[in-house]
């Protein structure tokens, strides 16, 4: 059995990929916490606690939930917004995967080639990747683990991510709702969100349309 734990970093100048250390992705109905395959139920509970305990919990929606390529995507995006409002969590988009030059606007965007810049700038301590193509998510997750102390959660619509600290697989609208319900349940039991107050910026097709005061 692998002893490799996928924990928040900073881990190394170049950390190994978890797959190369023998970590295996969960099967349907399972999830993955810090290198260990667990039941999906356990992961909802752990994810909810991590999110509520964070000062700057942030969702990074990727192209697969940002662009309305079909009605399902719109449903997913709506569910995601409801999840963000429930905590509350910031939303910082990963709209595409192009490296940002001359420099990234780290307050408003994240990029898979240098995701650590956005994490550092905003002091993000827990994040959720959703709607990011798996290859790009894996790149980001490993770079984040290498250079930051952020706890990474992946809500993957495919097979999951062993480079995330916590990963769901086959994540659909129902699973986003279920995570939200887990957060609501904890809050009803008295667990309070530690999120620092913030104002969500708003973006349109042309960029920032409303900045926080």
């Amino acid at each position: 059995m692998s002893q490799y734990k996928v924990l928040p970093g900073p881990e190394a100048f170049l950390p190994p990929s978890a797959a190369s250390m023998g970590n295996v992705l969960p099967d349907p109905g399972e999830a993955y916490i810090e290198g260990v395959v667990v039941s999906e139920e356990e992961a909802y509970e752990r994810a909810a606690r991590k999110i509520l305990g964070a000062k700057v919990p942030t969702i990074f929606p990727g192209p697969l939930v940002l662009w309305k390529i079909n009605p399902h995507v719109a449903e997913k995006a709506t569910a995601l917004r409801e999840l963000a409002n429930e905590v509350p969590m910031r939303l910082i988009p990963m709209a595409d995967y192009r490296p940002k030059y001359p420099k990234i606007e780290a307050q408003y965007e994240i990029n898979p080639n240098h995701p650590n810049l956005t994490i550092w700038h905003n002091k993000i301590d827990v994040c959720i990747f959703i709607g990011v193509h798996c290859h790009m998510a894996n790149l980001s997750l490993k770079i984040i683990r290498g250079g930051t102390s952020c706890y990474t959660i992946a809500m993957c619509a495919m097979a999951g991510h062993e480079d995330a600290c916590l990963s769901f697989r086959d994540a659909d609208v129902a699973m986003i709702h279920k995570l939200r319900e887990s957060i609501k349940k904890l809050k009803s039991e008295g667990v309070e969100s530690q999120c620092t107050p913030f104002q969500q910026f708003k973006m349109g097709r042309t960029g920032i349309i409303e900045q926080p005061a």
Partner: protein
Amino acid sequence: MNKTVELTNKRIIASSHEKLGQKNRMDQTYTDVNDIFYKAEQTPSFLTGSEVIREAIKRASVGTSVAYPITPQSEAAALIGEIYAEGYLDEYFRGESEFAVMGQCAGAAFGGHRVFTTTAGPGTLRAMENFPMWAGARLPIQVCVTCRGINSPLSIQPDTLEMYYLLETGMLVWHAETAQDLFDFILKGFIVAEQPDVHIPIAVCCDGFFVTHTKDTVELPPLDLTLTPYDPYRNPQPVMDMETSPFRMMRDPFVMKSNYISYATHASWQQEIRSAVERSRKHTIPLLDGLIDEMNTDREILIVASGTAVSQSREAIRLLEEDGVKVGLVKIKTIRPFPTEEIKRVTKNAKHIFVPEFNVVGWLAREIKSIIPDNERVYEGPHVCGGMTLPCEVIVEQIKIHLGMETEKLRM
């Protein structure tokens, strides 16, 4: 592993493709790979390896195949051309060279087709630049490598040296022993390579002539069943255009930057490709019934081999048994991913490990030596090259000589 991959239920996650159960234009039903291999009735047919490739492609829902006339030395590319004419494929054409073929395959795969091609020997090496490009771009193209000599003076005889060059391209590399393996590996190879957590190219290798040109009995599923088509929406990379990676990354200054961020991205990208190879284990183990086959591996003398060297070893073991020498056998089916833990386990108690091969360098022996303790136990050979056969008597002789036993000198 943080979780054991079970062998007991020889199935992988069933296809949920929207065309599952529907008919294609050839009146074939799109069928889950588990059902094709484990539910459908199999019928024995007597075929050459090249014909087996044709039969596999008939049942593989391939979109595009590109051929170059010189390679492979098998007839496979021509036979696929014939089934294209019958309507089994969407696209089939001839490239200008092996290099061009592999580039054209990349284009078809970027466009969302399931892609198959064949090559061999010098063609493989000429096309080499494309293989890591396929892997880096996460293109699940399948190339059937019907191994032949790569050196000058030119040889069209079987030799597995070209596989050594493929090992670190980031592709899956499987090695078929028989025509049956070849058929199974081609169909199962598409399924494993196209899993969203894998999604990298695969080289299904076999030994030229010995497999491609000889006839063997092969169990075939019905022709009215075919794999579910490739689903480009399960691609871990966005569909190609000049605004998305990997192409956008290549035309940006990013690729030329000398800074940590650039290095970290490129390094992580390379790690991700290797991770994809590792992830394929989970899907390959149930489909291939393990990455290795083992027979009497509790014995002190073991032969570890891949490809047709396994077949020769089986007969050598029978001959040795007649002389009272008991030898176990390990057949390696996947070279990438390499069955590291499996080999460590089965060789744990072996005192002598022989690795017969069809190449001059003995690359498989090197691979094994690099992962097991006390690797002086590994005897690199016997190996032949340049198209030579590897008679089972040679394996017997080498084992006996190494063990200090008396043996009748072979006369060639």
